[in-house]
């Protein structure tokens, strides 16, 4: 414990480069939230189960609470703050709002980032597939049904269909 060894890292988050000198035991989730102050990524369990802290690490979903910030040196990261294109919401965001796919919204950023990557690979999922893809993200408010409906609608929107 009590490592106060420091290292300087450079990380590209949402297309912007951040250079910071940090302690080597700093979690990536804490780096993103408290060093870079992108607080849209949330922390729910700090042991990799709940999925609230999910980000895209080199394009793939990853639990930022299970990585050290130093492991992200040189990496490209996307967070919830990059999901909308300026004022234009991503189809997932639109569909979640239309389907009441969130209540407290705490788990939502992790779910949106997970689903962004999932729909890129699976543009035409079934309900059962969406449920399986969501199963690494805990939500305590919704019972998931309206989330599932939102993801299916977002997939349709992204295919250019209006469901």
């Amino acid at each position, binding site marked *: 414990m009590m490592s106060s060894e420091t290292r300087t890292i450079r990380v590209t988050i949402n297309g912007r480069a951040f250079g910071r000198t940090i302690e080597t035991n700093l979690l990536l989730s804490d780096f993103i939230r408290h060093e870079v102050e992108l607080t849209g990524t949330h922390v729910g369990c700090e042991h990799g189960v709940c999925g609230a802290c999910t980000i895209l690490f080199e394009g793939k979903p990853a639990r930022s609470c299970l990585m050290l910030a130093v492991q992200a040196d040189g990496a490209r990261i996307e967070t919830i703050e990059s999901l909308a294109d300026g004022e234009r919401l991503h189809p997932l965001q639109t569909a979640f709002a239309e389907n009441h796919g969130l209540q407290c919204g705490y788990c939502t950023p992790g779910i949106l980032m997970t689903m962004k990557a999932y729909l890129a690979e699976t543009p035409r999922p079934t309900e059962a597939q969406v449920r399986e893809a969501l199963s690494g993200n805990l939500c305590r*408010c919704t019972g998931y049904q309206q989330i599932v409906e939102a993801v299916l609608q977002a997939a349709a929107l992204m295919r250019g269909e209006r469901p």
Partner: protein
Amino acid sequence: MSTRLIGERVKRREDHRLLTGTASFIDDLHLPNMAHAAVLRSVHAKARIRRIDASKALALPGVLAVITHEDLGAANDPMPLLNNDRGFISPRTHRALAPGQVRFVGEAVALVVAESRYRAEDALELIEVDYDPSPAAVELLAATQPGAPLVHDDTNSNIACRTPHRRGDVEAAFAKADIVIAEELRPERGAAQPMETRGCVAQFDASADHLTVWDTTQAPVSARGLIAAKLGMPEAHVTVIAPDVGGGFGVKIMLLYPEELLIPFAARRLKRPVKWIEDRREHFLGSNHERLMIHKAELAATKDGVLLGLRDVYYYDSGAYCPYGPINAECAQGILPGPYKIPAIHTEYIAVYSNTPVVSPYRGAGMPHGNFVMETMMNRLADRLGIDRVEIRRRNLVRPEDCPYDGGTVFQYNTALIHRDCDYPALLTKLLGALGYGHFKASQASDRARGVYKGIGIGCYVEGTGIPPYEGMEVRIEPTGHVTVSTGYPSQGQGHQTTLAQVVAETLGVDPDKVVVQAGRTDRFAWGVGTFASRAAVVGCTAAQKATVKVRQRALNLAADKLEVAASDLEIVAGRVQLKGVPGVGITLAELAAASNPIITLEPGVEPGLRAIEYHRPEGATFASGMHGIILEVDIETGMVRIERYVVVHDCGVMINPAIVDGQALGATAQGIGGTFYEKLHFDEAGQLLTTTFMDYLIPTAMEIPRIELHHLEHPSSLNPLGAKGVGEGGVMPVAPAFAAAVEDALAPFGVKINAAPFSPPDVLALILGGTADREEQTVPHPPHPSTGSG
């Protein structure tokens, strides 16, 4: 009158911030020069503290302070007793920091403040606490035995409270009954586990002697009062703000949790902002639990299955302290009869201290426990009499023509369970039709013959909602044309901003986009109780409607004056007061607001501004109702349950926003499924909690929760002008008994009886292999003192 908004699926105004990562949860606050805190927690369930040596921790670079109970002085006096149950024998409440004696693993012992959270957590390991541990009272029934270790040494028993309740001649009812059945039922211990843990940030402005506290509380107004009192400050010098809060479900009200006092105390002492964010393990240990009860229930009936009497004597695990009183036990009693007519009822709840974390309400607050008991007893009675489980319910339901009907028990705030504005037979008909009950029963035998074990089960509930004492609302029309609505109760995801805007905009006659809602900040509105017990729609929205009606009348009167017409000839359309039938004659609300607050003169006797504050003070609870039905299949080789159909039919009165109602019903049902199959807190004999991560306390995922079919019936409440009954908690209530019923039905050839929840696949398998085994109930001798004879 104006555009219809109440009853519409209006999209939530909360969502944009939450979807774009721009919301502001407690841990998102970054204040200049902020320090960070961590809590040292007891590692023993019961121990004396001989000595705390913080010198090594204080020597660690970056550590600013270590605070123990001695530093707190009078601020560490016991916290208030929120519910003084009439049966209390020895009420004991917690303190912010344990003074010389710890009573559960996780109890707060000291607070470290450092330059970073990492440093504060490092420092915890350097604090030396010299504990003198002793045996702990952990298991509920064992804790009631003579000679059990005492949780509080100044008592002579761990029994905190014993409260009987009677209706009718119970002895006579049992004496004349054709049949009496008795069961011991055990809803187990669980926890709310919102996705955001608790947290607190405090900032002290020494020049103004003002403390600002951001707190993940469901009750900021009460929290402010207590923080001010404990710190000896005027309430005017303390502001409590509930920011965006990531789920509550009851666990985020304690009044006060230790940290809600310690963090403001530290911020004032250090004259620096201080932040504390609970981690998940701490949330398991240091935040409240819910649920374990052991019910010894008896039901008396005629041979036709008509209920004559109910007895239920039950033990309630209160944890180490009882700041809420035995509130879950009280609520369980309040809704125990469900939708059934029972002429004679005797209940008694016995709250017991144990060396485990404090127990307080989690969604449903004991009502799911009561429902588990009643519904299971109904099934047992039906089975014994050879009557269909649905038919026996039909024979005992309160009917609309019986209403108002006194159900015979008493809910919170001394509210009798009065059935009114309800139609339980209609709920049942709707459920059975949607479920295809008759069709299922017809095909069940042939399924069984080919080795497919399918079952059907239903669960019926009445949910107490909208409890007193009050909520308040200020509505004011601004010269900008905006309408500002301010209230004390905060949101933890329920969408209050949206529903309040719907109620105010429709009632006043303005565009909802013009309505600004401020909630959960004591600097905006400092009166109110809090968000719990399905109160917001019933109590809060009614207050909003009352205040809006008053403001509307003021606007009409003022416009009548200006336009020289009668107020009764005016209407308000899209923010403009106009003459009915002559829309060209009118004046905007913005102009009226400006005129009502003149710079130069104000007419004698006229209050400035177009504004009103109103309170809604319900005389007692309202009651919502519903029924769930399940068709499932059990794999008899593994005990696994596959859910085929899940149907919910409920009546929460008038729905302000049906999309939000759907979300409440679906989410509550999902939490019920967690409590049915997965979620159970396990302690070892020494009182160590063994389930402290999401790897061993299992929250259901999208794979475990089935698609749920929802049906709404809307019988408006006659107790408030909106007709709302509340919807937050009911969905949890019948889930476990309905699943138990369906699993029992599927396994009828094995004679399986489920008397405890949760029941996991291994539990179900054990029941299949062992027949009617009641798993844990027989391991501890029963206490000698249930106060009634048996029937």
